[in-house]
C-alpha cells in the first residue's frame, strides 16, 4: 500500500523473489508430503479425485470473491445466489426439463442476482459489505419462501455428469485459467486492481468505475450459479439450504491466498491455491479421523497465519523505509 517507489520497481524486476504465492505453494507441497507419509492410501488417484471434487465449489466461488475483494468490495451473497439459482432455476426438473433449458436458466438467474448487487452497490453508494449482507438475506428468504424448503430429488442423470470424476476440477481449472488471463492481461483486469488501489484515482484516470464494479458482481453471480450446478451434480439433489456459510469459506480461501481485504493487491492464482490448501488439509484431517468439529480451528489458524505473514512483510518494509 504505502510502499516506496524504488521497492515497487524492484518488486516488478524480480518476479520470483516476490512471488507472492510461493509460501502457500510450498505449504501445499509440505502438506502433501506429510499426509502421504502419515496416511496410508493418501497418495491414490481415487483420493485425489475425491479431494478435487470437494475443492471445486468453493474454488469457483472464490474466483468471483477475489474480483470483488480486489476492487475493495466483498460479496457475502455468493452462497445465497448459489441456492437461489439452483433451487428456483431447477424447479422445472421434476417436469422433465433438460439441461439445455435448466443450465441457461440457472446461470441467467445468477447473472441477474449479481447485476442487482452491482446496481445497488454503485447506485445506492453504500459499502458492498452492507448491500450484499442485505441481498444475502433477501435471496435466501425468497428461495426458502418459493421452494417452501422442499428438496428437489431425484435428479436425472444428465445433471450429474458435471459432478462426476475429474469434471468439477477441470471446470475449476478452466475458470482459474480464464480469470488469471483476465486479471493479468486485459484492460478490465488491470483496472480492477486500479479501482481497489484507489477508487478516486481510478475515477480521475478515466476508468468507468461504476460499470466495472457492476461487471465484477455480475461475474461473481454467474460463478456462484455455476458452482451451484457443480454442487447439484456432486450431491445428487437440490436443497434450498445449500451454500449457507460458503461465503466465509470463499473469503477464507481468498485471504489465505494472499489477497488483501483492503483491495488492490492479490491474485486469482493465490485464491486457487488457498482453496486447494484448505481442501487438502480438511481432507487429510478427515482421513486422520480427526473430528470434523475441529475443522474450523484449522481454517481459522490458516487465515491468521496467512494475514500475519503478509502483515509482517508489510511492517518490515515499513521499517526499512524509516
Amino acid at each position, binding site marked *: 500500500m504505502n510502499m516506496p517507489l524504488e521497492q515497487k520497481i524492484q518488486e516488478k524486476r524480480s518476479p520470483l523473489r516476490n512471488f507472492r504465492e510461493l509460501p502457500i505453494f510450498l505449504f501445499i507441497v509440505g502438506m502433501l508430503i506429510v499426509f502421504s507419509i502419515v496416511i496410508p492410501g493418501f497418495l491414490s488417484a481415487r483420493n485425489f479425485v475425491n479431494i478435487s471434487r470437494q475443492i471445486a465449489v468453493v474454488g469457483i466461488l472464490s474466483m468471483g470473491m477475489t474480483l470483488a475483494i480486489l476492487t475493495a468490495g466483498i460479496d457475502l451473497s455468493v452462497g445465497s445466489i448459489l441456492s437461489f439459482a439452483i433451487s428456483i432455476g431447477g424447479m422445472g426438473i421434476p417436469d422433465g426439463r433438460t439441461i439445455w433449458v435448466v443450465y441457461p436458466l440457472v446461470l441467467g438467474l445468477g447473472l441477474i442476482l449479481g447485476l442487482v448487487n452491482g446496481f445497488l452497490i454503485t447506485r445506492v453508494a453504500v459499502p458492498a459489505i452492507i448491500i450484499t449482507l442485505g441481498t444475502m438475506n433477501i435471496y435466501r428468504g425468497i428461495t426458502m419462501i418459493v421452494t*417452501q424448503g422442499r428438496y428437489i430429488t431425484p435428479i436425472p442423470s444428465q445433471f450429474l455428469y458435471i459432478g462426476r470424476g475429474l469434471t468439477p476440477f477441470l471446470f475449476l481449472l478452466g475458470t482459474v485459467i480464464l480469470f488469471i488471463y483476465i486479471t493479468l492481461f486485459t484492460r478490465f483486469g488491470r483496472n480492477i486492481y486500479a479501482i481497489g488501489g484507489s477508487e478516486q484515482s481510478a475515477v480521475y484516470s478515466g476508468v468507468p468505475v461504476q460499470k466495472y464494479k457492476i461487471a465484477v458482481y455480475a461475474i461473481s453471480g454467474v460463478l456462484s450459479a455455476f458452482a451451484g450446478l457443480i454442487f447439484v451434480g456432486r450431491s445428487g439433489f437440490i436443497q434450498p439450504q445449500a451454500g449457507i456459510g460458503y461465503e466465509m469459506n470463499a473469503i477464507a480461501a481468498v485471504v489465505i491466498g494472499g489477497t488483501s481485504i483492503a483491495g488492490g493487491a492479490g491474485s486469482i492464482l493465490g485464491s486457487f491455491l488457498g482453496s486447494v490448501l484448505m481442501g487438502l488439509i480438511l481432507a487429510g484431517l478427515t482421513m486422520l479421523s480427526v473430528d470434523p468439529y*475441529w475443522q474450523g480451528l484449522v481454517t481459522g489458524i490458516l487465515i491468521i497465519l496467512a494475514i500475519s505473514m503478509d502483515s509482517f512483510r508489510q511492517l518490515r518494509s515499513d521499517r526499512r523505509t524509516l
Partner: protein
Amino acid sequence: MKPGSEQFRSILILILVNVGIILVLSFLSPTFLTYENLLSVLKRMSELGMLAIAETIVFISGGFDLSIGTIMAISGLIAGQMYILGLPFFLCILLALLGGMAAGLMNALFIVKLRLQPFIVTLATMSILRSIVYGVLRGKTLSHFPESYLASGDLTILGLPFLFIVLVIFALLATLFLQRTYVGRQIYAVGGNERSAYLSGISVNRIKYTVYILSGFICACAGLLFSIRIRAVIPDAGLNSPLEVVTAVVIGGTAITGGKGTIAGSLLGVLALFLLTNGFSLLNLNPFWQLVVLGLLLIYVVGREGISKALVGKRLKKKTHQSAAIK
C-alpha cells in the same frame, strides 16, 4: 443528541417503524398485544440486544466484530463446563466473563500488533472459537446449572422480565460510557478519523484494546443470559448472530465506517427484528419473510439518500458518481 441531527432522525424513523409494526400486528393478530406475548418478545431479545450493544461500540470505533455470537457461545460453555468440574458457581461466572474478555483481547492483539483488518481477524477467531465449542460439546448440550441461576430467567421486576432489565441496565451504562466519559468520546474520535485522533494525542491502540475487550465482556454476559433463558448451553448458540446483529445495528443508524452511532438506535433495530419474527410466527407466515423484510430494510435505511437520488434520475448521476468516488 440534538433534535434535527442525523442520529436523531434515524432514531425517530426507527421508533415510527416499531410503532408501525406494533399497530399492524395488533390489528392482524389478536394474541399479539397481550402481556404474555410482549413479555416473551422482550425476554427473547435480551441476549441479541447485548450483542448489539457490543457490536455498536466496536462499529463506532471503526472496527468490526464477527466473533460476537461465538464469544457468547464459548462463555456459556466455560460457565457450564467449569460448574460440572465442581467449581463454585460464582467462580464459573467469573471465568466465563474472563474468557470473553480474553477472546476480545486476542482479537485486539491481532488488530493492533499486526495491524490486521478486524473483519478478517474476527472471521478467523470466530472460526477457531466455534470449532472449540463444537469440539468440546460434540453435538451435546449442557444443562447442569444451579436452579437459582436458572430461576432468575422467570423473574419479573415491575412486570418486566429480569433478563430484559439486565439489557436495559447495560444499555444505559453503555450510553453513559459512550456519551459522557472521556474514553467514550475518544472511541467516537478514533472511529471518525483514526489519523487525526492519533495526531490529537489519543492513544488509538489503547482505545482499540478497550473496545474489543469490552465487546468480549458484553458478549460473555450475553452468553450467560442466553444460558439462563434456554436453560442450557447449545453448540449452535449465536451462529447467525453476526448477521442479525449487524443488520440491527446498521438499521439503528450506526455507521459501518465508524465515528457515529447510538446504543438506543441499535436496540430499536433489534426490537424491530424480534417484533417481526414474533408477528410472522403469530400470523403463521413463512418465517423466511423476515429475512426478506430485514434485507430490504437494511438496504433502504442505509441507502435512502442514494436511492432517492437514483429515483430522481440521471440528473444527479454525475454527482453520485463523484461522491461515490470520494467515499
